[in-house]
């Protein structure tokens, strides 16, 4: 299994996707932090240094989790797209082991990526806040950091699973966006908030929000719910992958 994971990392390192994702995450982090701090207090924005403002600055998990979801999709559906899946299964005919290796790769990459980008976010935010006279962040930074790390890892798993289920990169990414933005955020959260908080996006919001959780799940419960979703969808993907014919 270690060899298979090492090979998956080698595959990631030898294509531009991971570097593009890193560059994009870096660019969006810098842009988001600077605009949120520099525009704080403007009409329609939270006051500088407030819980809402800091929470917004540190909500980089939205970017990293989506990037990791795309990377996860590339790990599985990308192989179908380029027909490299045949070579992969010639090398390791036991498909379950291949999928497990991809899940481990996505989880580790997601966790490291999520933690590093959050660290970068913080490293940019702290001196800019200090320059603006804000020397104390009124949020539990460690909890947010941990939440973002877990969120990004879980979205990596979900990406791998969705890619394995759809075998189509575009379909997987669109399906994920439609589910999160339209079904969960657009429909279920406003209409059935008590049920929606148990869904993946609801749990993700709970993990990365520093403001009063109110009707949302606690970070601990949200972590369990998100891990449960990632595990369940991965299990379904595994069963489907083992049973169906290769294309």
């Amino acid at each position, binding site marked *: 299994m270690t*060899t298979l994971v*090492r*090979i998956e990392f*080698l*595959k990631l390192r*030898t*294509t*531009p996707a991971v570097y593009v994702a890193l560059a994009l995450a870096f660019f969006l982090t810098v842009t988001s932090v600077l605009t949120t701090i520099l525009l704080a207090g403007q009409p329609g924005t939270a006051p500088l240094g407030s819980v809402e403002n800091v929470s917004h600055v540190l909500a980089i998990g939205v970017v990293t989790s989506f990037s990791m979801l795309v990377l996860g999709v590339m790990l599985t559906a*990308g192989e179908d797209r*380029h*027909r*490299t899946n*045949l*070579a*992969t*299964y*010639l*090398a*390791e*005919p*036991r498909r379950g082991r291949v999928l497990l290796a991809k899940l481990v790769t996505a989880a580790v990459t997601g966790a490291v990526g999520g933690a590093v980008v959050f660290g970068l976010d913080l490293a940019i935010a702290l001196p800019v806040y200090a320059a603006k006279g804000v020397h104390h962040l009124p949020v539990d930074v460690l909890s947010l950091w941990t939440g973002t790390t877990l969120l990004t890892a879980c979205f990596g798993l979900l990406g791998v699973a969705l890619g394995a289920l759809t075998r189509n990169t575009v379909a997987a990414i669109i399906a994920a966006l439609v589910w999160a933005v339209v079904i969960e955020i657009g429909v279920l959260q406003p209409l059935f908030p008590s049920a929606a908080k148990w869904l993946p996006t609801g749990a993700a919001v709970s993990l990365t929000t520093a403001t009063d959780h109110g009707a949302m799940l606690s970070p601990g419960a949200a972590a369990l719910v998100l891990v449960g979703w990632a595990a369940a969808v991965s299990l379904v993907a595994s069963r489907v992958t083992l049973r169906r*014919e*290769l294309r």
Partner: protein
Amino acid sequence: MPGIAFRQLSKRYGAITALDGLTADVMPGRVTAFLGHNGSGKTTSMRLLLGLSAPDSGVATIGGERYVDLPHPLRRVGAVLDQGFHPNRSAVNHLRIVAAQAGVPRYRVEEVLDLVELTPAARRRVGGFSLGMRQRLALASALVGDPAVLVLDEPFNGLDPAGIATMRAFLRRFADDGGTVFLSSHLLSEVAHSADEAIVIHRGHLVSAGPVSELSTTTPGVAVTSVDADLLAVTLARRGAVVERTGPHSLDVTGASTDDVGRAAADIGAVVTDLHAIADDLESVFADLIHRQEATS
């Protein structure tokens, strides 16, 4: 022991029978061609052999073991199917991945790049490769693990004449060194030049298996042109041949070799202006085998 063995291998896709009880052997030290029309079951057989698809019944083995049971499959079998390459990955990085999968040292990458003459393009993106270069990279991928068995689906596709000659020589050398070569091809003239054995399938059924040389003489036929065609036709018919008139002075003869026809002509003093075997090219033999299979089924 055969390098590759198919035993009563069957596979259905819904209502379609892709393969129906295929039994055949592919021996080490020989280049064996796998012939059949599109949809005849060649690719299905190869996918079943390589564990990419599961049979409904029967078994396909390599050196007596199923592919999925081989401990290091890439070190036992090198396969070139229609697998693709990541277009943004360089050739050398692609082969590094294969080397890691096969569990062989990194220097094998340089060796196989040299072998297929891709060293100058090693660091180029595969997306910019020509079809022929991709074929050579696919062959390099198959060879990284230094396998004893090669399974190649249409290996001559996209190769220029020089590439075909190189490939042909390579496969010959590989087989002469004791390796097993099992290749499918629709370029029958190439098969005639490259293969020792041929397995012919049609609509999932085995049609014929044996040496290419025997395959070429399974349908003897001779075309003869003679100013004494009438007399020659009678003579040949008396000697048991079936004679068909194809022109004022020309005959098609089956059931007799060119030697037989020549001797008959000499015996009666007939003047022969043309005498050659017909249906001894693989295309004709192949078409005839398929025709006979269809007639009997």
